[in-house]
């Protein structure tokens, strides 16, 4: 700032934490309703915002909101695995694909209604995904990333090659939801519930153990805990969330196809997570809510949207690696003012 140099008064920006944090993270001492409100306000805004959104949007954007919900779920599951367990899963679309195909098959072949197929597909899909990832769970870091990245792409090849599950055509004419309100509130409520469940979980003992595994798995072994069993549990939880997204998707569009294994479902959630802030869980949801409409608005430009969100992704990862959420949180919890030195 040129003015400051002219006035020869040196100033620095001082940051002060609001006095409601007690020593460790996530523990607050509240002394008034005002402080209570101050803490709860962002949460209330987010929940109410999500719940009111369907009333404010027209048909087209309501659809986009549903898609954003699916991406938000995937981003949540990616963030949970990457930031809290240390498993970077580049194959998020595998969750979507397996959830979608299972519910699609149950609906098409057995004629079961969505309220049955979705829970079954969620659980069975999660079991399938966990089993598929099981051999790679012993691997660390980039090895896990590489193998998880290959599975959805190879599954597509297998489906095409063996011409199973409708081959390249997919399965169409599935049951859809009775009305757009069910569409939206189903996914929104699941997003909100999974978000707050995961936030709770990562601070419970199980979450602490998972974070310890990420920090240092050898010491966890020396503490008499099988890290494989915890990783399996974590992957199962993450794939539950992802497979629900897939099962929901199949009934939203009434169609299941190989495009549900496509890279969109793997890369956009990652971009959303990086943009929103890794490890915050809320950040990825917000990231998905920003990126999905953006990519939708660019649908006319074909592949440009993929290029665009890759650019956003690189921009954030290189220049703002903390992400939006950490940045906003810091600003929200601190007073800032200029002070003479």
């Amino acid at each position, binding site marked *: 700032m040129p003015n400051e140099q002219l006035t020869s008064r040196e100033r620095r920006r001082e940051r002060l934490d609001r006095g409601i944090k007690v020593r460790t993270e996530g523990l607050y001492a509240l002394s008034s309703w005002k402080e209570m409100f101050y803490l709860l306000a962002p949460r209330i805004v987010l929940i109410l915002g999500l719940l009111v959104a369907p009333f404010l949007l027209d048909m087209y954007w309501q659809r986009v909101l549903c898609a954003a919900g699916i991406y938000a779920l995937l981003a949540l599951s990616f963030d949970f695995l990457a930031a809290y367990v240390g498993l970077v899963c*580049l194959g998020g679309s595998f969750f979507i694909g397996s959830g979608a195909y299972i519910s699609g098959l149950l609906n098409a072949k057995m004629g079961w209604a969505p309220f049955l197929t979705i829970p079954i597909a969620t659980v069975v899909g999660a079991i399938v995904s966990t089993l598929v990832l099981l051999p790679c769970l*012993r691997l660390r870091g*980039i090895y896990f990333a590489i*193998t998880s990245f290959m599975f959805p792409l190879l599954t597509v*090849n297998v489906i095409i090659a063996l011409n199973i599950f409708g081959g390249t055509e997919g399965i169409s004419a599935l049951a859809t939801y009775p009305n757009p309100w069910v569409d939206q509130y189903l996914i929104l409520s699941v997003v909100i519930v999974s978000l707050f469940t995961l936030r709770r979980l990562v601070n419970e003992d199980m979450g602490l153990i998972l974070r310890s595994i990420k920090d240092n798995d050898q010491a966890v072994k020396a503490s008499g805990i099988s890290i494989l069993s915890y990783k399996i549990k974590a992957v199962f939880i993450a794939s539950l969330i992802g497979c629900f997204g897939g099962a929901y998707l199949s009934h939203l569009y009434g169609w299941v196809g190989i495009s549900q294994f496509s890279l969109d479902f793997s890369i956009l959630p*990652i971009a959303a997570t990086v943009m929103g802030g890794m490890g915050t869980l809320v950040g990825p949801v917000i990231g998905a809510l920003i990126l999905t409409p953006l990519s939708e608005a660019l649908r006319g430009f074909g592949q440009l949207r993929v290029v665009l969100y890759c650019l956003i*992704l690189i921009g954030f990862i*290189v220049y703002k690696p903390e992400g939006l959420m950490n940045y906003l949180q810091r600003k929200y919890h601190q007073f800032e003012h200029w002070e003479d030195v």
Partner: protein
Amino acid sequence: MDILIYGTVNSVIFALVAVGFTLVYGVSRLPNFAHGALYVLVGFLTWSLVNDFKVFYPLAILISLGISALLGALIYRLILIRLRGLPTSEIIASFAVGLIILEGLRLQGIGGFKGFIGPFYVLPAFIDSKLRIAGVLIDAQRLILIGGGLCVVAALWLFTHYTKTGLSLRAIAQDEQAAMMLGIDSDRAAVISLSIGSALAGLAAVIILPLGNVTAEAGYRVLINALAVCIIGGLGSWAGAVLASFVLGFAMIISTALFGSVWESVVLVGAIILILIFRPSGLLGKQKELEERV
């Protein structure tokens, strides 16, 4: 005999595709997920130079290899250098670069650019003829491919064993800290390895692509193949990569001959899963790498 010759061709294809990726990872521990994209990019660049700009074919190849090497260096200088030591970010960022290239090639309607879509892009073979070896009909390009593959591996071996730069790359690969203390610049080594690796991806492209069409989708397949070879052979292990290429190359040709080509990707998945279960360090991985992995 068919199986022997086409198996060898297929194996060399695998090796060519994987050798660049292994080199980069072996030297600087950087997973270059843009590898497949660079491969395809060089294919299209060469095509474009030959057909749109009427450049002499060998010159076109050289120019696109140069561009590829430059891109590799740029990827490191602009992006990866800020992310060293953060594996998650390295993977995501290089993958994003790859996607930008691949999807960018398919962009349509911007500045009159039509996008490289469809099966119209074919690179000419170096020598357009067919030979008969031991009763098997084979075209000259495939023979060139085998020769080219051998040359690349031999050249790399000579480069890393007998040139100063090559030796410094190996030093960095073995012990980064110690090498840095001896005055080897880790960043410079990474830039060199990434540009060589990218150029190798391009070289693989110009040797392999005349056998078929150039399509953007091939980028993903190439990346998957390179990764599969590296996982099976042991990441960063060159001998392992070559061995794994032959295992995969022959496994695929044999399965195609027995069951039909649809089983190719099943074989690939199966091989990876088997390796992960029974020998997580890869065929020639070492104990140290095993500790890193498991």
